[in-house]
């Protein structure tokens, strides 16, 4: 069996600050950023008011969808939040779905999802500070009684932990299960074709054609779409409740 499941490999090291490791996740993140940027530029170039093209209608539909999502979950006066939500949706979905192409998805690396969750966490704290003031910000931790201080701190910290672990676990389980199924299918094809004396033909993994596509539809498309949606929903719900 030649199944290898490992973390992101370090591809090269930048020679600043005593060496910064650039791992597979970072490189795939660059690919995702380039894809999203090129897609957005392609969608939005030469727009016109009087004679909209099909591409422009699709772009408007996407923007309206995100605006509606924000409006339904946060309220009327949160329109300025739509770009952040759209960014999280696009980045999260594209990086999880990148495993279709055979590259390693950045979100299968805990540091990426933790970074995303920390952005949300700092936003939540910022809105707490904005809406309650400095005194109210710290008073929140000793409510309803001061004995609850450790519980409140744990409750506050568990939010980014649970958000990042949920996203990471879902994508990583997909990666691991896909690798295991590929290994099993290779072993099975060797079992079936093993009687052929020609080693080249005997080693062709015929069962790896087509069958993993079913898994890919679930793990790459469905799971990543759901996780991106949930990440956005949790971000919106928590920020909106922090600002109250």
């Amino acid at each position, binding site marked *: 069996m030649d199944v290898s*499941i*490992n*973390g992101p490999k370090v591809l090269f090291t930048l020679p600043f600050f005593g060496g910064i490791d650039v791992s597979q996740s970072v490189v795939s993140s660059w690919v995702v950023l380039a894809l999203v940027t090129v897609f957005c530029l392609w969608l939005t170039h030469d727009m016109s008011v009087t004679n909209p093209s099909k591409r422009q209608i699709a772009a408007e539909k996407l923007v309206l969808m995100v605006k509606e999502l924000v409006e339904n979950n946060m309220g009327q006066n949160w329109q300025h939040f739509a770009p952040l939500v759209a960014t999280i949706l696009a980045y999260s979905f594209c990086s999880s779905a990148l495993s279709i192409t055979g590259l390693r998805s950045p979100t299968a690396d805990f540091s990426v999802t933790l970074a995303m969750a920390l952005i949300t966490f700092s936003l939540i704290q910022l809105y707490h500070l904005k809406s309650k003031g400095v005194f109210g910000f710290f008073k929140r931790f000793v409510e309803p009684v001061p004995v609850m201080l450790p519980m409140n701190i744990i409750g506050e910290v568990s939010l980014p932990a*649970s958000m990042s*672990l*949920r996203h*990471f*676990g*879902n994508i*990583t*389980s997909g990666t*691991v299960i896909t690798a295991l199924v590929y290994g099993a299918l290779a072993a099975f094809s060797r079992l079936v074709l093993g009687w052929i004396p020609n080693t080249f033909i005997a080693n062709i993994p015929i069962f790896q054609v087509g069958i993993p596509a079913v898994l890919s539809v679930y793990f790459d498309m469905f799971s990543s779409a*759901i*996780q991106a*949606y*949930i990440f956005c*929903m949790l971000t919106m719900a928590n920020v909106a409740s922090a600002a109250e």
Partner: protein
Amino acid sequence: MERAIVLAASAIGIGIAMIAGIGPGIGEGYAVGQACAAIGRQPEAQSKVTSTMILGCAIAESTGIYSLVVSLILLFANPLVNLL
């Protein structure tokens, strides 16, 4: 010898950790059942019920994901072996 004991205990621990998958299974099954009942009563609310159900299922799944993360750590980055 100690290494073998630690590895065996880790392997058993991985299996035990994944028992936590029972919880989300029951919870999600209940949620989906209730959603089906709700759609049966009010078929016009199907899209809203479905999206709420999927969101709830994915959040209920997080305890299962935690156990998965624990078992993945024990499988691929076992910290206990380094303690020897």
